[in-house]
C-alpha cells in the first residue's frame, strides 16, 4: 500500500507497539501532526508546554513502564529543546526514540528558517541517529531506530525527517518487530563466578540500573537469598531490591549509608550487576572494595575496566546471568556478616530535627505510610533527590524515576507526566525542590490539561540547597548565588495553572495535608516549607572513603 511519510511514521509506531507519544507541533512536523490526527484513535499524543518537558515525559514513561518512550518535535528550536532530555536518557541508558522534523531536503544546509543540524548536535548524546533523506528508507530506518534503542544497553536514538519526506509517498509493507538479540553469558565465566561466590566469607552485591532495565529484580532476589549476600543499590538501582529485606543495606556511594560504605570496604567479594562505578559511587576508584575480589556483570563490554579494575567480567543481560548464578551457587549462610553490616548501619544516624516545623524526614515517614509498593516516586535533582533515595522505602523496580548520570534539574515534572500517563492506575508523586521546580514548572499546565492526578511535593527551603551545602563544606560558607531571594508563592502559582495548591509548614500538618492531596484525585502542588539548614546527610566527600563520612554539619 502506498503511504506518505507521515502515515508511514504512524504505521511503524503501531508496528512497534507504541500507543503513546509525547511532543509539540510546529512547521516542519505539520504533516506528521496531520497523520496523528488521523491515527488519534490508536496513538495518544500528549502535548506538553515545552519540548524539554516532552522529552523528560517520554523518558519517565520509558523508565516506569519498561517500554520505549517516543517524543516528537519540530525542527530548529523544537529539536534543540530535546537535547537535555536526550542526554539525560543517554546517561541513564533509557530506551527512547526522538523524531524531529527538519526543513525540506532542498533547503537543508542553507540556514533556512528553523533549520538546525540536529544529528550533528546529538551525535555525542544518542546511541545512534539518522537523517532520512529518502522516503523509501523511512520505515526501515525507524524500525532500526527502535531496535537500537531497545537492544543491548538501551539508549536514545534520534530520527530527523525533513518535511518533504513526511509528504512523499512510498510503498509500505507492515513488519513485525524482531526479537531482542539475547546475549548468552559464557559458561566458563559463570562457573568461575560461582566458585568465587561459594568461597566468599563476606560477599556483597552492588546493584545498578542494569537490574532495572533487564527486569532482573526477581533473579537478584533469588541469588541474594540463596547465597545470603547483602545488597546495596546505586541510585539507578533503587527499587531493584526490596528495601525492607534483611539483606538490604541501602544506597551505596556519596550519600549512601555507613553500612553500605563499610560493607564495601570490608567485603571479600563484590558482585557488581549492571552498574558502572560512577564517581558518585566509587569516589576513590583505586581504594574501592580494596579487600575484595570483584565480579562485574554488564551487557556493555565498554564498562569493564573503565573506572575500576575487576577480577572477573561476565558479559550478558543481568536477568540471564543472575538466573544462572542463582541456579548454580551453593546455599549459604552469612548471618554474622549480615549482622555486622546492620550494626554499622545502626552506628550512624543523621536525624535533623527542627522542633515543630516540618522536616524531610517527617514528610518521608508519612509518605512511606501512605504510598503503596507499586506507586511511583519521581524526583528532580538536589538535596530532595538524595533524601528520597535515603528515606523512601522502595519495594519494586520501576517505581523510582530520577535523573542519575546527568543530574538534570528540571527533569522531574516532565518525567512525572510520562510516569502517570504510562501508569494510570498507580499513584505518582513528584518530590522536587524549589530550585529544580522553578526550572520547568511550566509543565503544571500539562497536569491541568490532562487532569493528571500527580502530587507534587516542593521541598521548599528557598535556597539552592545542594550547591549551598557544598559551599558550606568546601567554600568556607561563601554562599555565592545560592540564595535567590525568590518570592514565589507555590500555592497561588498552582492555582493560577488550574492546579490545587496546599502548604505544609508544621510537622502536625503533614499527615492530613498528604491525605487531603491524595483524596483530590487530581493534580496538587504542596509547598513544603522546610529549613534551609537541613542537609543531605550522610555524605562522603568526593574522592574519599567511608572513614571520611560526614554525619553532621552547620
Amino acid at each position: 500500500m502506498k503511504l506518505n511519510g507521515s502515515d508511514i511514521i504512524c504505521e511503524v509506531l503501531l508496528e512497534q507497539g507504541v500507543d503513546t507519544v509525547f511532543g509539540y507541533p510546529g512547521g516542519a512536523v505539520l504533516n506528521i501532526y496531520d497523520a496523528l490526527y488521523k491515527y488519534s484513535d490508536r496513538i495518544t499524543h500528549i502535548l506538553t508546554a515545552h519540548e524539554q518537558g516532552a522529552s523528560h515525559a517520554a523518558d519517565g514513561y520509558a523508565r516506569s513502564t519498561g517500554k520505549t518512550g517516543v517524543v516528537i518535535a519540530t525542527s530548529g528550536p523544537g529539536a534543540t529543546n530535546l537535547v537535555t532530555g536526550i542526554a539525560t536518557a543517554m546517561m541513564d541508558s533509557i530506551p527512547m526514540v526522538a523524531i524531529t522534523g527538519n526543513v525540506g531536503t532542498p533547503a537543508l544546509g542553507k540556514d533556512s528558517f528553523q533549520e538546525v543540524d540536529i544529528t550533528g548536535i546529538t551525535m555525542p548524546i544518542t546511541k545512534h541517529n539518522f537523517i532520512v533523506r529518502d522516503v523509501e528508507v523511512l520505515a526501515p530506518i525507524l524500525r532500526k531506530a527502535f531496535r537500537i534503542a531497545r537492544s543491548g544497553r538501551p539508549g536514545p536514538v534520534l530520527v530527523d525527517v525533513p518535511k518533504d519526506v513526511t509528504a512523499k509517498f512510498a510503498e509500505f509493507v507492515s513488519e513485525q518487530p524482531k526479537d531482542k538479540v539475547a546475549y548468552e553469558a559464557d559458561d566458563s565465566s559463570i562457573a568461575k563466578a560461582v566458585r568465587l561466590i561459594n568461597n566468599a566469607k563476606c560477599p556483597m552485591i552492588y546493584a545498578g540500573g542494569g537490574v532495572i532495565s533487564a527486569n532482573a529484580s526477581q533473579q537478584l532476589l533469588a541469588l541474594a537469598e540463596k547465597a545470603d549476600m547483602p545488597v546495596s543499590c546505586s541510585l539507578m538501582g533503587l527499587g531493584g531490591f526490596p528495601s525492607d529485606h534483611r539483606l538490604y543495606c541501602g544506597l551505596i556511594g556519596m550519600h549512601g549509608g555507613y553500612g553500605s560504605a563499610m560493607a564495601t570496604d570490608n567485603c571479600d567479594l563484590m558482585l557488581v550487576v549492571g552498574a558502572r562505578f560512577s564517581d558518585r559511587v566509587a569516589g576513590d576508584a583505586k581504594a574501592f572494595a580494596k579487600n575484595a575480589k570483584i565480579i562485574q556483570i554488564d551487557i556493555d563490554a565498554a564498562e569493564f575496566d573503565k573506572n575500576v579494575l575487576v577480577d572477573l567480567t561476565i558479559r550478558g543481560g543481568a536477568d540471564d546471568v543472575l538466573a544462572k548464578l542463582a541456579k548454580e551457587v551453593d546455599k549459604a549462610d552469612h548471618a554474622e556478616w549480615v549482622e555486622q553490616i546492620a550494626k554499622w548501619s545502626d552506628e550512624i544516624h543523621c536525624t535533623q530535627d527542627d522542633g515543630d516545623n516540618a522536616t524531610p524526614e517527617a514528610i518521608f515517614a508519612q509518605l512511606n505510610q501512605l504510598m503503596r509498593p507499586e506507586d511511583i516516586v519521581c524526583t528532580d535533582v538536589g538535596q530532595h533527590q538524595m533524601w528520597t533515595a535515603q528515606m523512601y522505602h522502595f519495594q519494586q523496580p520501576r517505581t523510582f524515576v530520577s535523573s542519575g548520570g546527568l543530574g538534570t534539574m528540571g527533569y522531574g515534572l516532565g518525567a512525572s507526566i510520562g510516569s502517570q500517563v504510562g501508569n494510570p492506575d498507580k499513584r505518582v508523586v513528584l518530590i522536587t525542590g524549589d530550585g529544580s521546580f522553578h526550572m520547568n514548572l511550566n509543565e503544571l499546565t500539562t497536569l491541568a490539561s490532562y487532569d493528571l492526578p500527580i502530587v507534587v511535593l516542593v521541598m521548599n527551603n528557598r535556597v539552592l540547597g545542594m550547591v549551598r551545602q557544598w559551599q558550606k563544606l568546601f567554600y568556607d560558607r561563601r554562599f555565592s548565588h545560592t540564595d535567590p531571594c525568590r518570592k514565589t508563592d507555590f500555592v497561588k502559582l498552582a492555582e493560577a495553572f488550574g492546579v490545587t495548591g496546599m502548604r505544609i509548614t508544621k510537622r502536625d500538618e503533614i499527615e492530613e495535608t498528604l491525605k487531603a492531596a491524595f483524596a483530590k484525585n487530581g493534580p496538587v502542588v504542596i509547598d513544603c516549607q522546610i529549613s534551609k539548614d537541613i542537609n543531605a546527610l550522610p555524605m562522603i566527600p568526593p574522592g574519599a572513603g567511608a572513614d571520611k563520612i560526614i554525619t553532621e554539619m552547620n
Partner: protein
Amino acid sequence: MSNKKVLSALVRNHPGVLQRVSGLFYRRGYNIETISACATENPKFTRMTMVVVTNDELEMSQIIRQLSKIQDIRRIAILDERKAIYSELMMVKFKCQPKHRTEFLNLTFRNHMNVVYIGDSTAIVTVSGSPEDLDAILEKFAAYPIVEQTRTGLSAMEASDRPFVEMDDAEFIN
C-alpha cells in the same frame, strides 16, 4: 611505533561516520595521531585507519570497546605490527635553487621519489612508505628547506591471505 597502535576499521559508508569516530576520540580525550578514511572495493563500506598514541593497554582496550559501540563500525581491530604493511603518501615542496638541481634530482632518484613539479626555485616530490621511512628520507634532504609538506596519514593492511572482514551487507540500510 612503540607507543603507537594502528587500528583498522571497516565502517558503513555514511556521511557523518568520520565525525562519529573523531568525535568519540575528542570527547573521551584519546590521543589520535592520524586518521584516514577511503573507499574500498565495496562502495557501501569505508576503510578507516587510525594511529592512536597510548602506552596504556587499558586505555587501548577502552578505545576499541568504545569504538565498537558506534553503530556504523562493522569491524575494528588493532593490527599486529609484525604482520601488517603500513604506508603513507608524503608530498613535499622543497626550496631548490637551479644550481643545486642535478644534485637534488639524484637524491630523489636514489630514494625512489617522484618529482612531480619543478619551478624556478622549488620542486615538489611525492614518496610513499612507512612513517619511519619518510622521516628518514626527510633527514637526507636537510640541505633543502621545506616550503610545504603534507602527508596522507597511515594506510595499513594485514599481510595475510584472508580478508580483514567479509563484507556482509545484509544489515545495510540508508
